[in-house]
């Protein structure tokens, strides 16, 4: 039997969702028998592979690089999972949204800096004017809110997807928890 090809992606988030993923502890071994982790911040692979069955994305779309990555992942993935509040609602990264982007950068890199006061422009992706949830750009198949979603919930979601079912999450999860 061929194993499901699963990828996890980290965009503008704190990595708490990936930590929650790891909190599955020994259940990860059971999942490892049923899937191949083909791309992840936990795996040293630079290029997002072709024909991925399930891609689980943490974090909001905050920079041009995030957006490019999101379109790329979507085009190579069958089932896209929006994991955690940053991906689902833009959460904490969106707290900059009411403010003008230039003001935010100046505040962070000039007004609050003691030395080397300058907004970085080289070798860093340019920020989008607003941090946005994934589904404002691409079709998302499964939404898993939570900050972070619990390990039990992520286990349930991944297990259901590996069985070929769409996880029914109504009443099982909430924003912010």
């Amino acid at each position, binding site marked *: 039997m061929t194993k499901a090809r699963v990828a996890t992606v980290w965009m503008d988030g704190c990595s708490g969702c990936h930590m929650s993923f790891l909190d599955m502890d020994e259940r990860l071994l059971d999942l490892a028998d049923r899937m191949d982790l083909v791309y992840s911040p936990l795996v040293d692979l630079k290029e997002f592979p072709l024909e991925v069955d399930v891609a689980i994305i943490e974090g909001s779309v905050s920079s041009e690089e995030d957006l490019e990555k999101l379109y790329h992942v979507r085009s190579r993935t069958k089932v896209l999972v*929006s994991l955690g*509040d940053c991906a*689902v*609602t*833009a*959460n*904490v990264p*969106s*707290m900059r*949204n*009411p*403010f003008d982007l230039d003001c935010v950068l100046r505040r962070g890199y000039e007004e609050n800096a003691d030395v080397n006061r300058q907004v970085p422009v080289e070798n860093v992706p340019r920020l989008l004017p*607003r941090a*946005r*949830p994934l*589904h*404002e750009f691409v079709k*998302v198949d499964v*939404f*898993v*809110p939570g*900050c972070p979603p619990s390990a039990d919930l992520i286990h349930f979601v991944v297990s259901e997807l590996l069985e070929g079912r769409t996880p029914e*999450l*109504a*009443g099982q*999860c*909430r*924003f*912010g*928890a």
Partner: protein
Amino acid sequence: MKPNTAQITTLKIDGHDCGARSDETILDVAQENNIFIPTLCHIDGLQDIGACRLCLVEIKGSNKLLPACVTRVQEGMEVTTNSPRLQHYRKAILEMLFSERNHICSVCVSNGHCELQWLAEQLGLTHISVPYLHPKLEVDASNRRFVADHNRCILCTRCVRVCDEIEGAHTWDLYGRGVDTRVVSDLKQPWGESESCTGCGKCVHVCPTGALVEKGRSAGEMTKRGQFLPYLTLMREERQ
């Protein structure tokens, strides 16, 4: 106690036969019969105003959806409190409430104790399908003991009503229209400078979200105690 001149009526709610006084609302009768109807602007002990529209119900013979909190029962009425159509509209209302302001639950002092968040969970809301507006709103921390965070306000006006109807101070009111409406203290002055505010804190404890909170609470710590109102009202009526 006021003399009760109401008649007894019978009606059906979700197929159950219910008896009710003719001065009761559909919401009253549903709650007496343990039938769940979601609400946000309603709180026991305050006048209902039908502002949030989450308690919309279907009534046989009418195409309109009516708010259960301000619709009185009628003899022979047949009410449906849950249907795909109602679920659709209730979710849409919740989504618009979330998108209209900056409800970032993970860093909210009311996280886990919030009626808006709880309802979203109950109604199976996993994401917001309309774009977030991200308005620039202020946090008024000028009061010595409390904070008003307009990012979390859903304009249910529970604070306005409790201050007017129970405390008698009428510190809070509404300013502006539509999406620009704000709850303001006195004549749009900082809460800390309000001359009418008695500092009783009733508004804080009836607020369903983290819009009105006690100072010094960190994320997830602010629990509200809104159950005091019916007792307070009853005691006052008995005293009169």
